[in-house]
């Protein structure tokens, strides 16, 4: 059985490397982000299969953490403009800075 799990994990690793073509070529940054999201899911699956191959149940926790945090990168990508610029720093006040751009989007 472990040979089968390992074969499946190897196959999934191959799909990740194939997916890299989309990351390299992908015209839009949205495509790249999607590819990264797919890699996250495939990574979770590989970890689950490896947890059985290497008999280390801790890998299920690693998969759990990956599944949990896959959304952070996606949200960071979409809502990037969430954070305006830090304003009054000790010394820059006199550099005539405009009030930081309010978030129009």
């Amino acid at each position, binding site marked *: 059985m472990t040979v089968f799990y390992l074969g499946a994990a190897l196959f999934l690793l191959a799909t990740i490397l194939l997916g890299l073509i989309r990351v390299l070529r992908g015209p839009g940054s949205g495509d790249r982000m999607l590819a990264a999201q797919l890699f996250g899911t495939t990574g979770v699956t590989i970890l689950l299969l490896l947890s059985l191959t290497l008999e280390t149940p801790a890998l299920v926790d690693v998969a759990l953490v990956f599944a949990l945090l896959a959304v952070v990168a996606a949200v960071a990508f979409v809502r990037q403009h969430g954070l305006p610029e830090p304003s009054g720093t*000790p*010394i820059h006040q006199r550099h005539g800075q405009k009030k930081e751009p309010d978030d129009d989007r």
Partner: protein
Amino acid sequence: MSETPAAMLPLAISGLVALSLALAILATIWPRQAHRIGGYGAVLMAAAVVALSALFLAAGPEPENAATRVALGGWEAPLGVMLHLDGLSMTLLVLTSVVGMATSLYSLGYVHDPIERRQFWPLWLWLWAGLNMLLLSGDAFNLYISLEVVSLSAVALVAFTGTAAAVSGAMRYLLINILGSLSFLMGVVLLFGEHGVLDLVLLEARTEIGPTERMAAVLMTAGLMLKAALFPLHVWLAPAHGSAPAPVSAVLSGLVVTGSFYLILRLWMGPFAPLATPAFGILVGLLGVAALIWGSAQALRSGRLKSIVAYSTVAQFGYLLIAFPLMLVDSEAWKVVVFFAVVHALAKASVFLAAGTLQHAAGHDRIAEMGGILRARGRTVFALGLAGVSLMGLPFTGGFIAKYLLLEAGLATILAGSLIGVLWVIAIAGGGLLAAGYVLRMVAPAFHRGPRDAGEAVSPWMDWVPLGLAVVAAAAGFAGTLTLHTLTLTPGAP
């Protein structure tokens, strides 16, 4: 406490580490009181180090058991982290506490704005704690972590003024620091891979000449040379030191760079001792001569007070490189090098603090236009001159004794038959001459005739601390015998 001083020493070492960390944490938790914690803490720390040195001298009559090793958490060497105190680290600890206290008192006057005080003091106390731990640590990975503590806080302080020059200088300094730390860490990993041990003393017992040791030596020395801005890798020093606040430049030039040099010395006297071949010594010596010439030329050319002093750091560190070949021939020469580094750190710190006071008074630090300020502020110019004299190495100052001993070692190499020694002797003497050049360039406008202009009011701290430190730097000459005696208490040194 009836126990003998030797038994009290481990407790004192752990206490010093705990004290410096506690001060930094307190300043981080109560930023509004950070400057008071910093001020009183600096005096407390200096007193603790003096007490420790008294205990150390009392405890270490014979050099063999002088290296006090403290097992942190009670775990012995291969497993736990060991603190290591011997003559070499004791001397530099005293230097760090003297320069640290002076800089802290100076900063009380320099950083007077309530908002900035709250950020400056925690960073500065972390830097000071990092330096203390760097000097006390005896474990390779722990040295890496202490270097990171020192690097990050130093970069944050360089970027403190927030101007374009300061932030770009800090960025360059950060990139080079992380690169240096990673190359140092790779060296540690290679040694750990070969010997499975991280403690320096155990490593020294196990290292023999092999590909891993050579590669680890190259990586660790290159990483530390990056951090100490030794000649071929000094590109970051002038912009970072030139644009940092004055107390930060003083500490950077005095302590942080000397700390990295201390590590190079510790490694090449310990684990990498068998690797030091004469050819390598001559190569390092030639780098030193090049540093002397390049640094002095830049200092003589530069228009700003602070960048003159920054370039002079590169030049004076050329001496430390020249000393490498001397150490290979005359095994006692390493004590002279350390003594020179101590005197240079004291003098450089006081010159930077004096330059900071003058810059505060004048609002700029272009020498050509500072005539009036220099003429009016006699006390600061005297401090600048006195420390400059010690940099030059005129008689009766610490610098003179250091250079005299270096010359002695240089002559010894000539007698030992290697002709290259002549180059070292000429370089050492010439270096003093060049130093005279740029020190006098800084002080010369004071002697021209012209109006006096006291400029901005200066707080008493900023007025008297540079003078005090300059006097200590000059007086270091008389403490020569005591320092050299402390240095002899380093076991395992050639």
